[in-house]
């Protein structure tokens, strides 16, 4: 037998302390927090209901149109239409709509929070050196770990699913916003400063627009990560395609899991294409020549 690692201090009581502290937070702040996040829940539900209420062909045409606008390619557009059609054919339209709703809502919120955080991070090196390790931890921590505190705070349901998705998906948009702004040509920034731009004007007229291709790459990654979170989020009540996969596991129905998985792949391809093409389009304007 190998020697056991000596017990230096009592981890049991340490863990109990953490758990108790968290329980205390849940007991005292659970309800206010729930109220705080109610508007977010409303937004998610409205979006989901709306997508499901729309006739299927409207959604199909809208997504195909978006693909065409971004890619300017008939092939890609046709691909989107065919994939959306197949999602309907294999009978997972409604869950697919709730998945899109969850993905869009969490991406939107991640961007709303992540871009400002990235901007702040780009302003100071101290801020960056604090934030980067936190982001590293957020990205390497097993996803399931996030579920525990959120479920305890809100109980199983859509809010914890949404929040866990945001926490999981937000690092790329923060990282790349910071990076994008730091990479903006120093002379251009000197240029706008030399004409008397305020820090805010500098941000809005130069830094954000010039960092946009990089920020878009971050948003793209965030979208993809949100989509990859749907299966796990479904375990705590997010519904959607992930729930179909989960049911497949529970009922040992390979077909159910396979079809739902296929749906997720289709959605991933469609949104990835749109976001990437949009980013490239922006890049063209910014970096060609000079």
């Amino acid at each position: 037998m190998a020697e056991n690692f000596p017990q230096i201090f009592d981890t049991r009581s340490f863990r109990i302390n953490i758990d108790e502290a968290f329980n205390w937070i849940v007991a005292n702040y659970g309800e206010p927090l729930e109220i705080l996040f109610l508007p977010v829940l409303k937004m998610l539900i409205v979006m989901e209901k709306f997508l499901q209420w729309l006739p299927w062909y409207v959604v199909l045409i809208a997504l195909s149109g978006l693909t065409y606008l971004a890619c300017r390619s008939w092939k890609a557009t046709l691909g989107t239409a065919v994939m959306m059609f197949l999602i309907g054919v294999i009978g997972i339209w409604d869950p697919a709509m709730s998945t899109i709703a969850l993905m869009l809502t969490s991406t939107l919120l991640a961007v709303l929070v992540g871009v400002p955080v990235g901007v702040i991070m780009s302003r100071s090196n101290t801020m960056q050196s604090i934030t980067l390790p936190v982001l590293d931890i957020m990205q390497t921590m097993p996803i399931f770990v996030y579920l525990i505190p959120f479920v305890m705070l809100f109980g199983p349901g859509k809010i914890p699913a949404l929040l866990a998705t945001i926490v999981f998906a937000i690092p790329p948009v923060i990282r790349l916003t910071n990076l994008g702004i730091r990479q903006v040509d120093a002379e251009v920034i000197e240029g706008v400063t030399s004409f008397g731009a305020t820090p805010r004007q500098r941000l809005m007229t130069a830094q954000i627009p010039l960092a946009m291709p990089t920020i878009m790459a971050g948003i793209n990654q965030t979208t993809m990560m949100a989509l990859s979170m749907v299966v796990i989020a479904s375990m705590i009540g997010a519904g959607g395609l992930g729930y179909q996969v989960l049911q497949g596991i529970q009922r040992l129905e390979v077909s159910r899991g396979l079809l739902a998985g296929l749906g997720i792949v289709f959605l991933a391809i469609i949104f990835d294409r749109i976001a990437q093409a949009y980013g490239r389009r922006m890049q063209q304007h910014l970096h060609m020549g000079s």
Partner: protein
Amino acid sequence: MADKSIKITVENIFKIFGSNPDSVMDQVRAGASKSELLEKTGHVIGIRDVSLKIPAGETFVIMGLSGSGKSTLIRHFNRLIEPTAGKIIIDDVNVMNLGEAALREFRRNKISMVFQRFALLPHKTVLENVIYGLVIAGMKKAAAIVHGMEQIDLVGLNGFENHYPNQLSGGMQQRVGLARALATDAEILLMDEAFSALDPLIRNDMQDQLKELQARLHKTIVFITHDLDEALRIGDTIAILKDGELRQVGSGAEILLNPADDYVERFVRDVNRARIVTIGSIARPAAQLACSKVTAASCKKLLTTQEAIIVTEAGKPKNIISREFFARYGSAGLKSKKSETDDVACINQSATLEESFSMLANSDEMAVVIDEGSKPVGVITPKVVLKAMARC
């Protein structure tokens, strides 16, 4: 020149890069060298004790090799860089004391800058770039556009106002940079190697255009370059910088003729003198002889050491009699010289050697050098010009 008022005064500016510049100031003041300081403390001297007086309405050139601190120095004028010590006074205002808002106003109204790599906003059109300074200062868009179009006109970019910078050539992009800087009507124009990124031909065009604009606008221009030819061409005064220290300040001719030290000397050695040296400074003296007084006797007396210029009764140069000519043809030649009706070639004394080339090439042997009032002051031969150029 004493009669010009001083626009910018730079007083004992020091700039040290590093983690704690103030801590090494004593060593720098005591005269620690750049490499010594870097080795001992890890600090880099950018600018060491520079003082300058820049007259209003002048093109003031700051020159030096790469790394001599030119960009660092010019960025102090609009405080893109804060000095470690010293101050800059512009129109009686100490720029170092300006608060954040006052500094912004100062940058919006008083001073503008043109950058080496243009520093245009690639997502904005030419027009939007040109009116950028006006718009962020709060001018109404319509008024800004009117004003911006005037500047675009001024730099000759009509028809390109809706293009994006990346659709333009380098020279055109820098014209946009220039128009943007002119648009705010700032009295002071900072140009950091503004033409260095351009091809030689375009560069010449831009230099000419700048000179032409300056003749009309009379801004105070601080122009950075590492090219002495460019400095001599556009600068009224030239300051030479080395390792962050000022080595010499003076007019182009002063620096060419009396370099302050070895460094400046080496700098000016390769300069294209044909562009700087004037005809007046190398003209040979000549006697003047009214047309009616041209006789063999008078010529014999005059033409011992110098040539003679035949002038009309009004004092206008008419022809030249060289010693060689007189020796060869004697008084018979004089007659034909007197009766020749073609005007003799004349070159203004302030013309540079280069400007005289075509004139000399077309004249037979000699040309008359005249002053501003068309009075002859001497003669010049191609040989003398070649000699002056060969001397360097």
